[in-house]
């Protein structure tokens, strides 16, 4: 069980913005004091680079930075050597896609869905252009859900990579990753899972799911910006090329251009990383682990069910994912463009996102170009939901334009 009033005391923004209802955690989460303190301490008491200094605080940072691999490993159940630090989930997915190039050839199929975020589609589109792989889409239902049956229908022996979000970012469809992975592996395909919307909200165990890659961002799970993780199965990482070359990732190089790369994961971390970001992510993971991912998942499910039940009562609201039991609520006020409606909610101090949420081909599935996305995290309350629902009931074209006068 989560004590939400207690948890909220950990987040200084609730004191600094007492009237704000923040329902945009799928975009980025709020930050607890422990994470802010961990990042600040790097600046105030132990600033240094990593893997380069022969002095005490440098050694301290090496231990903190590399030690965070263990924290991540315990969080998603992998080997610390399988944890690559990146700048965000997008960077992780680009590294996975481009890193797999040596293992792919012209005509190989990348199987994905139309509910994916740009970051799990565009890297594959770029490979399509560069080496001639072919992107195919498994069929989804009208709420963005992939059934095991539809996945099997789309799977064939030409498929070499399955690129799929654990939870989709607009409709919150929880995809059947374990079953997908089992079938994909049997067909000889690798599975790249975008965990940006799943890892912050539910227990994710890469061994149990069987995925070959998992990408996620720290900033969506109470951590700092500019920091992400790519988990990769060790034997695959060893066969992969880095996207970036430079400092730290090489063992030695010579004037004729020969480069000897370091072993993974450092091979994939060229240049000075976001050290304070990684240290802050460690604090964030420890914070989430203390609350418990099962508890977070259960509470969010309960809160979402409450939210959905209230929203369903409103005649002026159309909901696009009413049957999904998890994730954001995607909706529109009838006859009002999503950004106008979000503007009205903003005037009531309710923060949501409007638009296509970087999922720009999802409209082919859910039948609308843009939606309002209200997304939850464990620090949201029923009182906040009530305020949002009350404001939603007031959305009309007149009111949406009225905010300008």
């Amino acid at each position: 069980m989560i004590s939400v009033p207690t948890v909220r005391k950990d987040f200084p923004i609730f004191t600094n913005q007492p009237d704000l209802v923040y329902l945009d955690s799928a975009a980025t989460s709020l930050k607890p004091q422990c994470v802010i303190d961990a990042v600040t301490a790097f600046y105030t008491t132990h600033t240094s680079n990593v893997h380069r200094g022969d002095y005490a605080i440098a050694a301290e940072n090496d231990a903190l930075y590399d030690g965070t691999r263990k924290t991540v490993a315990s969080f998603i159940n992998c080997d610390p050597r399988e944890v690559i630090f990146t700048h965000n989930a997008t960077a992780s997915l680009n590294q996975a896609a481009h890193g797999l190039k040596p293992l792919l050839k012209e005509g190989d199929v990348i199987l994905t869905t139309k509910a994916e975020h740009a970051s799990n589609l565009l890297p594959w589109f770029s490979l399509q252009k560069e080496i001639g792989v072919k992107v195919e889409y498994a069929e989804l239902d009208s709420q963005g859900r992939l059934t095991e049956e539809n996945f099997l229908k789309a799977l064939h022996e030409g498929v070499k990579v399955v690129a799929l979000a654990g939870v989709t970012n607009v409709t919150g469809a929880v995809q059947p990753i374990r079953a997908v992975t089992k079938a994909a592996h049997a067909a000889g395909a690798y599975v790249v899972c975008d965990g940006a919307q799943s890892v912050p909200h539910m227990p994710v165990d890469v061994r149990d799911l069987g995925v070959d890659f998992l990408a996620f961002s720290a900033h969506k799970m109470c951590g700092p910006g500019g920091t992400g993780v790519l988990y990769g199965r060790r034997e695959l990482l060893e066969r992969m090329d880095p996207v970036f070359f430079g400092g730290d990732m090489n063992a030695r190089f010579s004037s004729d251009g020969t480069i000897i790369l370091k072993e993974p994961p450092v091979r994939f971390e060229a240049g000075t990383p976001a050290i304070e970001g990684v240290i802050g992510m460690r604090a964030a993971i420890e914070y989430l682990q203390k609350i418990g991912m099962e508890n977070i998942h259960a509470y969010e499910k309960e809160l979402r069910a409450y939210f959905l039940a209230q929203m369903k009562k409103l005649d002026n609201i159309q909901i696009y994912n009413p049957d999904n039991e998890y994730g954001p609520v995607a909706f529109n006020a009838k006859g009002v463009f999503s950004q106008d409606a979000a503007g009205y909610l903003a005037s009531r101090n309710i923060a949501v996102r409007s638009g296509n949420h970087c999922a720009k081909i999802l409209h082919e599935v859910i039948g609308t170009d843009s939606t309002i996305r209200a997304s939850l995290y464990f620090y949201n309350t029923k009182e906040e939901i009530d305020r949002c629902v009350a404001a939603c009931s007031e959305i009309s074209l007149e009111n949406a334009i009225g905010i300008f006068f």
Partner: protein
Amino acid sequence: MDNIKSMLDDPMVLRELIMDHYQYPHHHGLTDDASYRSVHMASDSCIDDITVQSKISDGVVKDVRFDGVACTISTSSTSMMTDLMIGRTKEEAEAIVDEYFRMIEHKEYDPDVLEEAVAMKNVYKQANRIKCATIGWKAMKQMLEESGEDHE
């Protein structure tokens, strides 16, 4: 005239104007006529996606048309722009566009020149919506500038 002026100070009237231009946009729908220039505005923001067309010949804006997916502010501001542009000389049109951008940037401006488009006068208060209020106008500004290049 004074009566109209005072009406354009009334928030209720301005709100009605925006609604009206949004629900029944003027000069809406694109043409295949090759004598029109066309600017597709889709790269500035993730949401709005509009195309503005204009026919500028002999130094006069003969016609302006637009279509696309956009919010109330984008749609109505572009609709108002078409009303203000059609029939003006290139120089007059450019002066109106400049005046409009002054208003949007919250600088001194002449409301008489902008007529109904003064309905957009408060958009500067919502910084994230300035893009919406200028998307169609930017397209027009670009086409006016390009039309000048033809004569050189």
